[in-house]
C-alpha cells in the first residue's frame, strides 16, 4: 500500500503535531483518513459523523476535485496521491 500525502489546514494541525502535511498509508480516501486519525477520538469526531460519514462542513479534495464526486470515502487513491482537507471558516 503506497503512502498518501494529506494536507492539513491550520485549524486541524493541533492534531498532527503542527505539521502542514502528513504521509499515511491508504488505498482509499477512507483508509487514508482512518490512518490519519487513528487513536485520536477528538480528531475523528471533528472529521466524521457518528455514522462514519464525512461531516458536511469538512471537504476533502483529490487534486482539485471534491472526493464526494469521485466516489466519496470509498474513492480509490492512485499511488502518490495528495489529499487536501478543508474545513469551513467563518472568520472575517
Amino acid at each position, binding site marked *: 500500500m503506497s503512502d498518501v500525502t494529506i*494536507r492539513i*489546514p*491550520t*485549524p486541524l494541525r493541533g492534531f498532527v503535531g503542527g505539521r*502542514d502535511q502528513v504521509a499515511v498509508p491508504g488505498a482509499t480516501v477512507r483508509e487514508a483518513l482512518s490512518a490519519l486519525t487513528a487513536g485520536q477520538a477528538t480528531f475523528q469526531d*471533528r472529521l466524521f459523523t457518528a455514522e462514519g460519514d464525512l*461531516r*458536511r*462542513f469538512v*471537504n476533502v*479534495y483529490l487534486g*482539485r*476535485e*471534491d472526493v464526494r*464526486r469521485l466516489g466519496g470515502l470509498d474513492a480509490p487513491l492512485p499511488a502518490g496521491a495528495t489529499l*487536501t482537507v*478543508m*474545513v*469551513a*471558516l*467563518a*472568520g*472575517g
Partner: protein
Amino acid sequence: MLSGMDFTDTQLHRYSRHIILPEVGGVGQERLLRSKVLVVGAGGLGAPLLLYLAAAGVGTIGIIDDDVVDLSNLQRQVIHDESALGRLKVDSAAARIQALNPDVRVEAHPVRLTRDNALDLIGGYDLVADGSDNFATRFLLNDACFLAKKTLVSAAILRFDGQLTSFKAHLGAPHPCYRCLFPEPPPRGLVPSCSEGGVLGALAGTVGSLQATEVLKELLGLGESLSGSLLMMDTLYASYQRITLKRDPDCALCGDHPTIHDLSAH
C-alpha cells in the same frame, strides 16, 4: 479610452492609473463610479475591502455592521484607529472612506443582517461582499443573494488560513452557491471564530485585498471569475491552492428540487 462621462480634472488625475489600463479605461472607471456594492462586516476583511473599493472609485458603498470599535480590533482592522474606540464601525469606516475619496457615497447600516431586513438591504446594490464573522450570517447572506439575484463575493479567514470565492448561482448551472460547498453550518463549538482561534492580522489584509480585486473584476467583467472554484490560502507556507467547486444538483437552495424558497428558516 475615455467614455461619455464627464470626468472632472480631479477625477482624471485620481483615477489615471485605472484609466490608462486598456482593460479598464474611461468606460470601466465610469462603470465603477456608477456601481453600488454592499459590504457585510467592517472588520478584518471589510477594512481593506472597503478601503480599496473606495480608492477605486466605487460610487456607492453600503456597510452593514452593528458592532463598535474595540482595541482588540486594531491588530488587523486598519480602517479604524484609536480615535474611533467605542464608535460604531460603520461610522468610523464611513469617515475614513470620505477622507480617502469624497467621490464615494457611503450608506451606513448599523444593524445586524436578519431574515427580515436582508432582502431590502441587498436589493439596492449591484453586488454583495461577505466579510462577516459567523456562519449564521454567511448562510443567510448566501440565501438572500440567490433569491435577490445578486453576485456574492465571499471570503473567510481563521488563524493562518483564508478562503475566497464568488457565488452567482442565480445565473443557473454550472454556477454553485455556498450551500453547494457547505450544505449546513457546523455544530456550535466545532469550528472556532477568530476571537476563539486567533487570526494573523496581515492575513486579513491579504485576503481582504484579494476579495476587493475579485469585486472589481466582477464589476468590470474582467478576467476569469472565481465562480466555480475556490482559492484556499495557507499563509504559513505561502501556499495558494485553487480547488473546483461544482453546483450540487441536490442543493436545498439552487439544486434541481430546491426546498428553500424564502428566508423563513433563518
